[in-house]
C-alpha cells in the first residue's frame, strides 16, 4: 500500500522531468522528521495528567487494585476504548474496553447513561477457575487477573465462564487475550491506558478490600444492567450521584446469535452417541449374553466398533476447537477447579477402554471368519480371546460408567458457567437425552441389520426408548419458547430461536420429527431390509437433529454480559 509509487511514465524525451513525475516523487518523500520532529526527550509520561486518578499507595494485605468508574463523568465519547487499543498495540479489531448504553423511562422522561466496561479483575475469576491449563494468574499483591498468552491452548472456555464476556479469542493467534489493567504501567506509577485516555477523568484506579460482605458493587448501574456480582465477585466500582434502578441495557432486546463452537457441538454429540451405544450394547449383553451365538457376536462387534468410531471422531473433532492443540497436554493442570480439565481427564481413559472393549468384542467375530483355524495367528487369537472374554462384562461396565461420568463432566462445564440456559437439570437432560436417543437408535439399527429375526421385545423396546428420547428432548427444547416475552436471558434465547435462528430451529425439530416417524415404522417392518433401512434413516436424521440442537445450544445462549449499544 505504501510502496514507493511508480513514475507515471518514462519521462520527457528531452530528459527534462515532467511536473507529474516531480510531484509523484515529492509525494513519496516523508518530511515530518527533519522539519518538525519533536525535539524534547523529556516531558510528562503518557497523555493527560492522571496522578489524582491513581491510588496514593499500593494495595496492602487483603486489598487489591480495582477500576473505579464515575458514571456521572462517563458521557459516551469512547476514547477509553481507542486509547487502550493504541497504547497497548492490540489487533486491528481488538478492544479490551467497551462502552454500552443504559436506558430508562423515568418520571421526567427518557434517561440515558453510557457506561465504560472492561475486565473486572474479579475476586473469584470465572476465567481462572475454568481454565484447564492455568493460563490465568491472579496476582497475590495487586489482584490483577492476568492472562498468560503463551500458556493458553485456545479452548475458549473462559469466554463462556466469564459472565461479562471479557476474554476475547484471537483466531489469528489461536489464543485468548484480555485486559491486564496495564499492570506494567501501574508498576511504574503510570496510569493504565484507559485512565490516561478519558477526557473526563471518569476512570480511575482504586484500592479495594477483598472478601468483605458488601452490597453489589455494580449496583450503581442498576440491577438489570449487568450480571450480578455474586458469581465471580467483580471488583470494579461504579459510582453515581443519581443511580437509577430502572436502567436496562439499550441492547436488551437485540437478538444476535452467539458463536457456534461447532467442533464442540460435534464432539458432544458424537461422544454422547458413543456412550449411548456402549450402554445399549451393555444392555444387550446383559439380556442376550455376550457370545450366545454368531449373530449376537456380530451385533456386539458392530456396536462396539461404531461406538469406538464415534468416540474417536468426536474427540478428534474437539481438537479442532483448540487454537493451539499441540499444548493440549497441559489440560490436567486445571483439575482442581476446572470441569473442562475433568472432562478431558475422564474422556481420555474412556477412549482407551472403549478401544479395548471394541477389540475384545471384535476378536471372536474375526476368529469366526478366519478361513483356516489351524494357523499360528488363529492360536494367538484363541488364547487372547480366552482371557479377554471374561473381562468383557467388566470392561463394558467400566466404559459405560466412565462414559457417563464424562457426560456428567461435559454438562458441568456448561452448568458451571452460571448461564441460565445451561442450568444443570436442563443441560444434563439434553446431554444424557442425546446418549439415550442416539444410543437406542444405533442399537435398533444394529439389531435390525445384524439379527434376521430380532426379538420383538428388543426392537420395540429400543424403538420406544428412542421415541421417548426424541419426544422428551423436543419438549425440553421447545419449552424455552414460552419465555419469549421476558426481558431475561431465556427470553433472549426464545427470541433468537424465533428470530435469526428460526430456520435452524425448524430444521432441528423437522429432523427429530422425521427420526420419530422412521423410529415408529422400523420395528413394524422388522429385520434386515426395509426395517433396517428405516432404522438407519432414523439414526441419521436424529444425529443431524442432535447436531443442530447442539449448534443452537451454543448460538442461542443469550445471557446478558455488559451493556451494549
Amino acid at each position, binding site marked *: 500500500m*505504501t510502496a514507493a509509487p511508480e513514475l507515471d511514465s518514462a519521462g520527457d524525451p528531452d530528459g527534462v522531468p515532467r511536473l507529474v513525475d516531480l510531484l509523484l516523487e515529492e509525494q*513519496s518523500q516523508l518530511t515530518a522528521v527533519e522539519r518538525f520532529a519533536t525535539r524534547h526527550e523529556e516531558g510528562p509520561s503518557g497523555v493527560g495528567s492522571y496522578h489524582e486518578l491513581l491510588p496514593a499507595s499500593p494495595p496492602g494485605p487483603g486489598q487489591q487494585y480495582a477500576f473505579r468508574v464515575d458514571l456521572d463523568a462517563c458521557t459516551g465519547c469512547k476514547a477509553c476504548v481507542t486509547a487502550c487499543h493504541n497504547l497497548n498495540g492490540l489487533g486491528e479489531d481488538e478492544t479490551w474496553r467497551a462502552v454500552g448504553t443504559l436506558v430508562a423511562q423515568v418520571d421526567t422522561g427518557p434517561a440515558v447513561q453510557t457506561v465504560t466496561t472492561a475486565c473486572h479483575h474479579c475476586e473469584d475469576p470465572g476465567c481462572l477457575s475454568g481454565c484447564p491449563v492455568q493460563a490465568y494468574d491472579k496476582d497475590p499483591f495487586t489482584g490483577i487477573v492476568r492472562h498468560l498468552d503463551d500458556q493458553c491452548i485456545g479452548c475458549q472456555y473462559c469466554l463462556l465462564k466469564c459472565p461479562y464476556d471479557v476474554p476475547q479469542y484471537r483466531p489469528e493467534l489461536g489464543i485468548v487475550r484480555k485486559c491486564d489493567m496495564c499492570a506494567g504501567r501501574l508498576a511504574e506509577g503510570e496510569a493504565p491506558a484507559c485512565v490516561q485516555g478519558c477526557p473526563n477523568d471518569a476512570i480511575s484506579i482504586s484500592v479495594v478490600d477483598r472478601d468483605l460482605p458488601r452490597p453489589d458493587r455494580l449496583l450503581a448501574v442498576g440491577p438489570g444492567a449487568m450480571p450480578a456480582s455474586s458469581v465471580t465477585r467483580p471488583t470494579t466500582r461504579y459510582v453515581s450521584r443519581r443511580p437509577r434502578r430502572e436502567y436496562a441495557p439499550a441492547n436488551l432486546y437485540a437478538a444476535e446469535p452467539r458463536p457456534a463452537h461447532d467442533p464442540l457441538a460435534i464432539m458432544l454429540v458424537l461422544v454422547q452417541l458413543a456412550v449411548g451405544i456402549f450402554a445399549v450394547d451393555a444392555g444387550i449383553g446383559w439380556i442376550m449374553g455376550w457370545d450366545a451365538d454368531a449373530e449376537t457376536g456380530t451385533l456386539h462387534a458392530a456396536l462396539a466398533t461404531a461406538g469406538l468410531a464415534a468416540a474417536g471422531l468426536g474427540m478428534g473433532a474437539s481438537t479442532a476447537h483448540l487454537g493451539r492443540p499441540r499444548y493440549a497436554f497441559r489440560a490436567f493442570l486445571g483439575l482442581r477447579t476446572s470441569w473442562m480439565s475433568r472432562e478431558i481427564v475422564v474422556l481420555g481413559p474412556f477412549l482407551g477402554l472403549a478401544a479395548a472393549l471394541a477389540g475384545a468384542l471384535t476378536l471372536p467375530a474375526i476368529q469366526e471368519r478366519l478361513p483356516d483355524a489351524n494357523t499360528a495367528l488363529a492360536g494367538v487369537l484363541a488364547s487372547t480371546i480366552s482371557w479377554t472374554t471374561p473381562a468383557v462384562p467388566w470392561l463394558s461396565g467400566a466404559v459405560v460408567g466412565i462414559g457417563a461420568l464424562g457426560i456428567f463432566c461435559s454438562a458441568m462445564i456448561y452448568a458451571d458457567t452460571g448461564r441460565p440456559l445451561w442450568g444443570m437439570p436442563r443441560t444434563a437432560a439434553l446431554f444424557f437425552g442425546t446418549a439415550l436417543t442416539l444410543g437406542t437408535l444405533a442399537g435398533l439399527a444394529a439389531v435390525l441389520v445384524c439379527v434376521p429375526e430380532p426379538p420383538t421385545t428388543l426392537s420395540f423396546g429400543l424403538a420406544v426408548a428412542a421415541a421417548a428420547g426424541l419426544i422428551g428432548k423436543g419438549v425440553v427444547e421447545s419449552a424455552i419458547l414460552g419465555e419469549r416475552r421476558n426481558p431475561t436471558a431465556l427470553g433472549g434465547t426464545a427470541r433468537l430461536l424465533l428470530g435469526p435462528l428460526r430456520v435452524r430451529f425448524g430444521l432441528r425439530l423437522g429432523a427429530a420429527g422425521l427420526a420419530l416417524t422412521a423410529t415408529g415404522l422400523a420395528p413394524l417392518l422388522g429385520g434386515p431390509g426395509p426395517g433396517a433401512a428405516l432404522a438407519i434413516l432414523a439414526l441419521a436424521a436424529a444425529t443431524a437433529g442432535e447436531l443442530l440442537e447442539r449448534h443452537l445450544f451454543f448460538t442461542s445462549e443469550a445471557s446478558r454480559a455488559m451493556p451494549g449499544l
Partner: protein
Amino acid sequence: MTSDSRDASAPNDRRTLRDTVQDLVRQWDGPLTRDLLRAPGRFGLGQVPSRLEPTATTTLVCGFCSTGCGLTAHLQQGVATNLSPDPRYPVNLGMACPKGWEALSPLDAEDRALDPLLRGANGALQPVTWDVALDRFCTEFKSIQQRHGPESVAFLSTGQIATEEMIYLGALAKIGMGMIHGDGNTRQCMATAVSAYKESFGFDAPPYSYADFEASDVIVLVGSNLCIAHPIQWERICKNPNAPEIIVVDPRRTETAEAATDHYAIEPRSDLSFFYGVAHILIENGWVDRSFVDAHTEGFEAFADHVRAFKPEAVEAATGIPANRLHALARSIHEGKAVSFWWTMGVNQGHEAVRVAQSLIDLALLTGNIGRPGTGANSITGQCNAMGSRLFSNTTNLFAGRDFENPGHRREVADILGVPAGRIPDQNSLAYDEIIEGIHAGRIRGLWVVATNPGHSWIEQAAFREAIAKLDFLVVQDLYTTTETAELADLVLPAAGWGEKEGTFINSERRFGLLQKVRRAPGRALADFHIFQLVAEAWGCRDWFAGWDTPEDVFQVLKELSRGRPCDVSGISDYAAIDAAGGLQWPLPEGEPVTRSERRLFADGRFYRENARALFCFAPVSPLPEAPNADYPFALLTGRGSSSQWHTETRTAKSAVLQKLHRRGPYVEIHATDAQRLGIAPEDRVQVETRRGSLEAHAVIGSGVQPGQLFLPMHDSNTNQLTLACFDPISHQPSYKHCAARIERL
C-alpha cells in the same frame, strides 16, 4: 510490562532441563506474551507497545472535526505507526476522541484510489495515467465552457482539505479557469453561523477561545450534543473549576442533556420563540446590561419591541416549556457572572437558522456576555477546516472575507496575487443549493467535486441524483473509489489524505494548526495541492500562480491576503512558528508578540461593523416548512449517531475499531409511548416514510427522543432519501433537522 519478565531475563544457555520442562507445562513468557510487550516510549510518551516503539515523534492537527486536537504521530523511519494525543497541545491537553486515536486506520483501507479512474465506453471506471486524466479533465471542461459559457462549469469543495489547498483551488477555478460558481460543503454545516456573525458582528468571527469553557459559570448549549459530537470540548467544560450551571436546549435527551444541570426539551424547531421568550423576560425584568448595550450595540430598542410579543404563556404554547422554567433560565442567565452561549448543528441546520443563531447573539449582547473570559455567542464548528473554507476558499466570498462585488476588494486581491483585477469574477458565486438548481436547469453542465460526498450527504437525495444525472462531466477528487459520489463520476482523481501531506487547518477557536506528512500516499495518489498544480499546468494557467510551489509558499500568500483584515495573521512567520506554539489563533498581526495564550475577540467592545457596534438582528417566527399532520404525524430529526462516526463515514467505516463503537445496521429511535400505541416492540423491523421516500430500520425504543419524534442517524446513506430540501433563506443552509414522517411495523 517490565514487571513480569521472570523467564525472559534468563539467558538461554543457563536454562536447565527443569526450566524447560517447567516452561513447557506452565509458560509465563514467549512470543505471544512478547507480542503485547510494552516499553518506555521516550518523547514523553509513557509506555508504548514495543513493536511500535517510535524513533521520533511529531505533532499534527487532527483531520476530523474542528476541535483541532494535536495528535502525536509515533514515527518509525519517518512513517507513522501509531498515534496518541499530545499532552502539550493547548486544545486537547492530551486527550482525543476515538476518531482522533484511530485517524491512521482509514489511510490503510483497501478501497483507496491508487490511480486516476476514467469511465470507459463500457460504463465502468478504468485506471488511466495522470496524463490521460488531466487531458480529459481539460478537454471536457473547456468544451463545456466553450459551448455554454465559463460559468457552466462549477466546483463543490470542502472543509476537509488544507487552507493552502483551498486557496489554490479557489484561485485556480476562478482566476485560472474562469469559473464563477463554487461552494463548499461548509454550506451544509456552518453557513448559518457565517451569515449570523457577518450581519451581527460585521465579520465571520467566532469570538471565543476554548478557555472560555473553563471560565464560564453558566454554559448554555443549544442544539449541541457536545459529549459525542465534540468530546474534547466537553472535556474543557469538565475542567471548569466553577462547577458551572450547564443548560442544554435540545428536543432530545442526548448524552449532553443527561450530563447537564438542566435540560430544556423544547418542541422541535420552536427555538426561535424560545430564545425570544428568554429575551422578553430579561428585558421585562430589567436584566439588561445597559452600559454595554448603549456603548457597543445598535438596534436594541427595536429588538425589545420585537420580543414584547413573546410572553411566557405564548412561548409555553409554542415550545412546551412551562413559563416558570423559562423564567428560571432567564434568571440563571441574569445571575451568571460569565455566561457563554454555544450552538451547533441543531441551530445551523434549520429553516430560520440564522435568526435562531442571532437570537443567541442577541442574548449575549443584551446581557453584556461577550468579550470577557467565559462569555460569548459561540458557534461550534463542524469540519476540521470549515473555518479555512469560510475565509479562504474563494467560493461565495472573496479571499479573507472580502466581497466579489466590491471593486476595491478585487483590486486588493489582484495586487497581492499579481494577477489583473479583471480576472477576478465581479459577481458572487451561487450557493450550493443554487448550484444544484443550476444543474437541474441545465445552466451548469460540468462539476468538480473535491473531498466531499454529496451523493450521501446532500439533502433530499432523489432530487440531487436527478440533477447529477444531467451533468455532461462529473469529476470527483477523493481518497476512496467507493464513495457514493465517486461511483457516479466520469473521472476520479486519486487524492492523498490527511497525514500524507502538509498544510494548515483553522479550528473552531480560530487556531491555525499544522498538518504533516507522516505517511506515504498509496499508488499514484497525490496531495490535493499537487493535483491543483497539475490541473493548472494542464489548463495552461500555471503562470498565474508562479511561486506557488509548496503549501508553505501559499501560506505566505495567505498571510498577505489576511493583512489588515480581521483575520490578519501576518504575524505568523511560518509553519515552524505554528508548530512551536502549538497552533496560533487569528488575529495575529505583524508585530504582535507570538504567545501561546488563548485569546478571544471583542475585549474592547469594538465589532467589525462600520460603526464598530454589534447589531441586534431578529425576525418574525416563520411556520414549519412541513408540520406533522394526520398522515405524517411525527417530527423526523436527524443527527450524529455516535462519537466514532464521521459524516458519510467514508473514513470512519474503514476502522474496525470505530465500527465496533456504534450500533450497526439502520435504526430509528422512537419513544416508548408511541411505540406501544403502534404495536412496535424493541428491535422490530419498521418502515419510516416521508413524502420523499422511505427506509427500513430496526426500532430502538426508550432512548432520548420525546413522544411525537423519530430520530435517524445522518450516517446512514438512506437518511437523506427522506429529508426535505428546505433551506434557510439567508444562509442557504439545508434544514436537515426537521420534516414530517410516519412509521409502521413491517
